[in-house]
Structure formats: C-alpha cells, structure tokens
C-alpha cells in the first residue's frame, strides 16, 4: 500500500456510521438546520422513506440523532434532531475528510 498523504487506509479510519453518503447528508442537513421533519429530509436528500428510516435507525443507535413523533391535525409527524454527540462526530469526520482532500490535492 502506498504511504502517500491520502490513501485508502485513511478512509478506513473514518467513522463508518457517518461515512455512508446518505447518513452524511442527514447529519449535514441537521447540522445546518438543527431539526427537520422526516419528509423534508427525504425530499432534500432524494431517498426513499424506507432507506431514510434504515439510516436514521443507525444514527439513533449511535446517539447522533433523536426522533420525535407527534401528531399535527391528526396526522403523524416525525421530527429529527441532531444531538451534541452527532455534531461532534460530524466535526471529527469533516476534519479527517479535509485532511484526505488536502492530501489528494498535493499529488
């Protein structure tokens, strides 16, 4: 394996929960907006509801997000919030990613 500034080994060290593109998108949107409804996340990221549910469950297992289920005019509404742990994990992930991108740019 190469010992260059950016390598596949560095990618392996990234937080695997966040490294999945949809989960990264969820955390980015929640980082920018604090809380969003399930539908907004779904349309914003262009994914199916089943796909989004699966990814949200994984993020909840790591305590990166919280789901709040309420009823508005008898209709169910799910609001997703980012937790401080989620923000911290995203910050660590973006810092690592930044280093990789800088490393690739040096080639």
């Amino acid at each position, binding site marked *: 394996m190469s010992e*260059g500034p950016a390598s596949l080994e560095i990618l392996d060290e990234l937080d695997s929960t966040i*490294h999945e593109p949809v989960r*990264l998108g969820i955390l*980015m949107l929640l980082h920018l907006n604090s809380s969003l409804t399930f*539908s*907004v996340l779904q349309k914003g*990221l262009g994914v199916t509801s089943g796909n989004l549910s699966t990814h949200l469950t994984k993020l909840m297992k790591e305590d990166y997000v919280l789901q709040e289920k309420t009823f*508005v005019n008898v209709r169910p*509404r799910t609001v997703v919030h980012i937790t401080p742990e989620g923000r911290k994990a995203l910050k660590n992930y973006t810092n690592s990613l930044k280093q990789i991108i800088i490393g690739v740019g040096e080639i």
Partner: protein
Amino acid sequence: MNELVVEMEVLAELTPHLEILDRVINFEKKVEYSRFLLFIALAGFIGIIGGFIEYICYRFLGVDATFFIFGVTGNPDLAPTAEPILFFSLWLLYLIPILGAGIFTLGTPGIINWNKTYRIIGLIAIGLFILTHFLVVLVGIPNSKLIPIIWGLAISCGFLLTSYFLTSETKSKIIQLGLSIFGIIALILGIFSSIIFPLELAMFLFCLIFGLLLIITSIIAYMNIGRLDGIIVREE
C-alpha cells in the same frame, strides 16, 4: 500499487459523498433564497408603512416625516410640545424596525449570517438612510417636491450596491438582475412621483407603489423559484 491509482480510488470512493453534499448545498441555497425573498417582502411592507406615515405627515402636519422627526411641523396644534404622543410615536415607528432588524439578526444562528459582505451591505443601508435624511433637511421644506427623487436615488444606490456585493457572495445572476431592476425602478419611480403626483401624495404613492412591487415580486419569485418544490411537506 501506483500512488496515483490509490488517489483515484480515494476520489472514486468519495464521489457518492460529494453527490450527496451537492444535494445538501442545493437544499441550503433554496432555503437561503426563500429567506432573501422574505427580506424583500419585509422591505416592501416597511415601504408601505413609510408611505402611510408620509401621507399622515403631509395631510395633517403639512410637512414631510423627516422634518417632523426633527420637530418641525406646519400645524402648531400638532407640534411636539402640543402633541408629544404623536411625536414620540413617530420616533418609535422609525426606531423599532431599525433596532428590531439589528437585534434579531445578531448571534448564531441569527436570521442573517453577519459575514463581511452582509456587514458592508448593512453599513451601506444605514449610511444611505442617514444621508437621505440629511439631504432632505438640506433641501428644505420649500423644495419638498424633490424628496421622492432623493429617496429614489438613495434606494437605487442601495439596491445597485447590494446587487454588486451580494453577487460576489451568492454567485446568483437572478439576485443580481432582480436587485438591479429594483434599483432602476426606484429611481424612475422617484422622478415620476416627483413630477406627476401632487406634493401631498408624491411620497405616499412612491412608497406604496414600490412597496407593493417588492411584495408582489417576492411572492411570485417564491411561488415559482424559491419554494422548496414540495420539500416542506410536514406529514409523511
């Protein structure tokens, strides 16, 4: 393995991430654009309120609102000493939107992210606002017919300068074009109001027409471009 090949593999692995980040950026741009349209609509609302104040001032006090906030009135019965409530109410109407805009946009997450560009735009707005009042006072009550031209010129400068600074920030041609058109319209409307309408109605109609124009345009833009195309669907 060749180092370059490894780097290409890194980039290939990150491609889906970059695609999803593109979607996040597009989402945020739409949110930002909708917020921008809300500010345009609010500016229109303030314009209409301004027009209403101008009408009250000309109709009952006989002078422009700018002269009245400095205590000058054409009707001695409504002078600040005789009618302090009227005088201070007008001051409050002036100060509350300015203080409100300042206070509610400070901090994070504020309504406006006060970066360098927005700070420059804010300072231009405050500077033009003060300069316009100074010019109106300088022109004097006998030349009140010129006031819509002064305001038209100031608003025009404000919109054109905002267009210039905001374009470098947002890279949006629509915003640049829209603000420039508003700037030109403000100047033309100011000149026409001054020439065509009687003194008592000139500022009222100038503010009313321009305010309505801002509100209607922002509503149309929001419905056609800014609205998040079904994204804000609360129920699933």
